[in-house]
């Protein structure tokens, strides 16, 4: 009987703390990627993006993050059938960053062992954390650049996507010539129902 209790306790411990005990003062995601897991947050916002052809579109995002080891961000357009989805999770080796792409089928591009400010995937994709990026006259700090321009077969809807740690999607480049930028119009925020 004692062995049974012990086994359950060990299993629960592994399930609840696969990366450790989540001491908020510890770092579970390395390098500048760590800047995306410095907040407790769950919300959804709706905001406006405008492209260089003059088309304005409404985007809806969903953010869930847990300090200091988890960040899940998804966003999609209303007119544009575009989706950007990125996930950062702790591991024993500095964390994984997964970019989900693919219309209809989910193609996962996983960057392992995060450190420094950038990583390159074997298939040619890159991710980089920029200290700042100016979009539409506004400067955003800690911006994740997802770069699919070097990919052998780009499964993403875009060439590049830029996600600010504290704001969400700020810019998308696609089809060589189109740039979609976040406008200064205030986003509307929805909080979850408990």
């Amino acid at each position, binding site marked *: 009987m004692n062995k*049974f209790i012990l086994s359950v306790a060990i299993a629960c411990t592994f399930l609840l703390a696969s990366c450790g005990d989540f001491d908020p003062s510890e770092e579970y995601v390395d390098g500048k990627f760590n800047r995306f897991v410095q907040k407790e947050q769950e919300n*959804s916002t709706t905001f406006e993006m405008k492209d260089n052809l003059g*088309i304005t*579109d409404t985007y*809806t995002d969903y953010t869930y993050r847990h300090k200091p080891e988890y960040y899940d961000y998804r966003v999609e357009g209303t*007119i*544009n059938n575009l989706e950007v989805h990125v996930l950062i999770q702790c591991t024993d080796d500095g964390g994984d960053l997964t970019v989900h792409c693919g219309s209809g089928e989910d193609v996962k591009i996983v960057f392992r062992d995060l450190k420094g400010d950038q990583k390159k995937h074997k298939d040619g994709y890159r991710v980089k954390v920029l200290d700042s990026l100016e979009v539409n006259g506004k400067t955003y700090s800690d911006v994740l650049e997802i770069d699919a321009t070097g990919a052998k077969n780009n499964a993403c809807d875009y060439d590049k996507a830029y996600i600010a740690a504290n704001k969400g999607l700020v810019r998308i480049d*696609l089809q060589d010539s*189109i740039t979609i930028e976040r406008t200064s119009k205030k986003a509307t925020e929805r909080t979850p*129902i408990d």
Partner: protein
Amino acid sequence: MNKRFFFTITAAIGIAATAILGGCYCDGCTTDTCSEVRHENWHLFDFQKEKNFFGQPKSARYSHSSGFEFEMKRTTDSTYKETVYDFCFEGTEENRLLRYTSTYPIMEIDVHIGAERYQGSVLINFADNHFNFWTDSTGKIEDSHEILDTARYNGVLYDSVYVIHGHKFTTWEHDRFEREQTGKVPYAYVSRTKGILRILTSDGDTLTLIGSEDNHE
């Protein structure tokens, strides 16, 4: 924790599992036995195989309520089979998919065409808005839908326009936010000979046909 407590817990889990499984069994299934399973294979009706099914073109130009125009091109035309299971029934259903895509803005309209024994189905998907209607084996749309005798879109007059009420599904948005959504009822306006004339989405956007390139070859 003694043995009695352990067995009590085990028994409780067992009872709960039985209740859950039993509930499912009684709710969704039946205790009747099936003496003979009927087999049927449904095929697309002739009108559903037509290249320009319901007047759906090779490409079409639409205007968007946000003030731009775009081209929808047929990029997929494929047939596939699905297995259908029901009580005392097993069969296959032949389906056809017509997919229209716009390069930019990135948009997609899927027209799923299906057939059962006596009736055909059409499901139009656009940006999480879904429109479904049934036809008879000759292509006549079921009577339950409103019909406009005439309708003029972008200066072109169309006869007999069917108004199809739709609904919206969100694909990824968290359940806890979904309950707060207040979208409008989407509508599709469909012609038996000119295809999709107009779509009003739950977000308030409107796509309206300007003109199309016929598929007659």
